[in-house]
């Protein structure tokens, strides 16, 4: 492990000149993909990214056949052309036949890729000497980049960033509501065209680093990961770029350090791990958050259900009386185990006093709490029996659940809507706080 860290650090220290190229190359390529991918995700066109990335392959092969050499600009132009044709075809087929979108995607993706493979193997078998390195487009090899390539990427990257910044509002609107954008006179068709050309160019360059098969992950995964943290599109975009750029650098460092490791898969694994971690811990939809929420809910339910037990007891007996665990268990028909858990929560919150040998009794605050929960329960029973058309014998179960959700504001609304009722549907008193 230490060794591994050392290797990564030595990569980041740029001790070898070529490292700089790989570092900046993957940083730029992955960063732009994260940027463009945000809109791919928001427009629900994630799988279109998949189509484009598979479909640049025949373009690359054709550019090679026509150009007779591996010239990056030709290759990118070729890739851009076939990539763009593929998205156009998917849309055309979906619009002009009964073929559904996902079928069109699968069809175009595999046919273009297959054709690309056919052409590539044709080139390889025909024994052209300079063909070596063409297959790097399938899985990507960032280490094959040179400084000229990086300058080219950087130039294209700057244009993409500037155009995105200028058109940000338009992109946001067409992602959110295309019809509305059209209605208020945005040039929707132009925006879509520019966005799709931007996407295709990004993919055409990105296959350098990660290869055609996994390029779609670079469009989808960073923004999906960012989605777990925010609803704000600007923040989303920035996060996606950061995640993506980080994975790019990290992935290429690994592939640079270990000979024979392809770059693309490592970048994808890193960014996918970021997505998993975000899904589990993200502030918006994170699983961790809902787990914590569930725990605090359960605690609240336990606490309120236990304090409720004391309400009927305090009506009949003297409030000073201590009740033993068994008495409470019998009175409330609750297993001792759950009950003692609930009692310890109550004691913690100073709602009851006493102990297991002495017995338990409510404090003043506890009495108020127990009246409050019974009041919410009975108000709700009355409310639903009136407004949900339920017989009095059907309302209890629902109120058992809802009583824990009712906030003071809702309680006040209920009281007003029901005109400060005194009795619940079972003719039992609704206990208000004595003023």
């Amino acid at each position, binding site marked *: 492990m230490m060794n591994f860290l050392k290797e990564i650090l030595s990569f980041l220290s740029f001790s070898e000149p070529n490292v700089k190229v790989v570092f900046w190359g993957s940083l730029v390529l992955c960063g732009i993909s994260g940027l463009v991918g945000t809109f791919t995700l928001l427009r629900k066109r994630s*799988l279109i990214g998949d189509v484009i990335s598979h479909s640049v392959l025949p373009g690359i092969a054709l550019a090679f056949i026509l150009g007779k050499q591996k010239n990056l600009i030709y290759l990118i132009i070729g890739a851009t052309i076939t990539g763009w044709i593929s998205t156009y075809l998917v849309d055309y087929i979906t619009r002009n036949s009964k073929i559904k979108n996902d079928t*069109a995607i*699968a069809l175009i993706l595999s046919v273009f890729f297959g054709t690309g493979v056919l052409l590539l193997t044709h080139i390889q078998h025909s024994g052209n000497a300079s063909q070596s390195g063409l297959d790097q487009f399938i899985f990507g090899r960032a280490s094959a980049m040179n400084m000229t390539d990086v300058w080219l990427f950087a130039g294209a990257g700057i244009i993409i960033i500037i155009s995105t910044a200028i058109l940000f509002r338009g992109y946001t609107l067409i992602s959110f509501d295309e019809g509305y954008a059209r209605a208020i006179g945005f040039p929707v068709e132009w925006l879509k065209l520019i966005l799709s050309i931007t996407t295709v160019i990004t993919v055409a360059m990105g296959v350098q680093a990660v290869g055609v098969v996994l390029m779609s992950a670079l469009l989808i995964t960073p923004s999906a990961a960012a989605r777990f943290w925010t609803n704000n599109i600007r923040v989303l975009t920035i996060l996606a770029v950061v995640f993506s750029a980080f994975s790019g650098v990290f992935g290429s460092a690994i592939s640079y350090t270990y000979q024979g*490791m*392809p770059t693309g898969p490592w970048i994808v694994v890193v960014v*996918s791990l970021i997505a998993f971690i975000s899904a589990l811990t993200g502030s918006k939809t994170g699983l961790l958050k809902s787990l914590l929420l569930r725990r605090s809910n359960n605690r609240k339910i336990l606490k309120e259900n236990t304090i409720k037990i004391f309400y009927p007891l305090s009506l009949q007996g003297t409030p000073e009386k201590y009740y033993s665990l068994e008495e409470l268990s019998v009175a409330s028909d609750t297993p001792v185990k759950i009950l003692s858990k609930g009692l310890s929560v109550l004691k913690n919150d100073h709602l009851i006093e006493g102990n297991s040998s002495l017995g338990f009794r409510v404090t003043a605050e506890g009495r108020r709490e127990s009246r409050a929960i019974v009041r919410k329960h009975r108000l709700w029973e009355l409310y639903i029996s009136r407004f949900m058309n339920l017989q009095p014998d059907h309302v209890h179960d629902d109120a058992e659940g809802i009583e824990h959700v009712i906030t003071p504001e809702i309680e006040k609304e209920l009281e007003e809507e029901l005109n400060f009722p005194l009795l619940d549907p079972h003719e039992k008193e609704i206990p208000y706080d004595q003023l």
Partner: protein
Amino acid sequence: MNDFWIITTASLVALNTAILGSFLIMRKMAMIGDAISHAVLPGIVIAYFISNSRASFPILVGAAVSGLVVTALIQFFSKKVKLQNDASIGISYTFLFAIGIILISAFGTNVDLDQECVLYGEIAYVPIDLIYWGNQSIGPRQFWILFSTAIIIVTAVIIGFRKLVLTTFDESFAAALGINIVFWQYYLMASVSLTTVVSFESVGAVLVIAFISGPPATAFLITRSFKQMIMYAIGFGISASILGYYTAVWLNGSIAGAMAAVIGLQFALVFSIVKFRQRSRIQDIPVSGA
């Protein structure tokens, strides 16, 4: 003889995928096929590595496990954390595929698998890998594997045909009849996984998708009944295998790639004819009305 075995093997792939693909595209699940065909890779590699052989059983198990993992991942993203469906599919299968490629790079020298063959198979080597009955060769191993799979798939689909069609066409009506939707969904997915895994080795991940989506889509354009659609799809698939093979020989390129290209051409041709007919029919109407 080599031509014969290659074409026959590809035709068996075409047969299985045409049948299942017809269901998948009518269920709008073509991309799930895509996801599974990529995602089985890590399982296959690990099985290769552990069993140190190309024996079919460990590979099936490995592939089945990773097939389950990708389904679980997609479910996790789309149901548990509410990510949109297309992105859930995209993330899950690229992740597993990436792991598969990394494993190949790491163990590449130990297992005889390479990165390219994963994508476009090595159907050209099918005739070399023979199996023997006593001393007598009875044909390529891949052929027999695909042949048995075909028997399983055809039987499974004939048995379940009615329920599969009903759950595909109208899920809520089927549920109202008391048909277990989830069961038939898994029935279909299990068949798809099996087909994908056994086809993987000969034609690779991407051609499986071409076969799953292409011939059924072409057939869908011109058929009137679902049974007919399956028959046509099989026809298109098998003819693409034959034409694809000779195209590859002619261009001296990848056989799987050529088959995918032919599948695309078939679709383009049928699509244009249908469009052309429609247009001329639309122009006919005012004439006949006059």
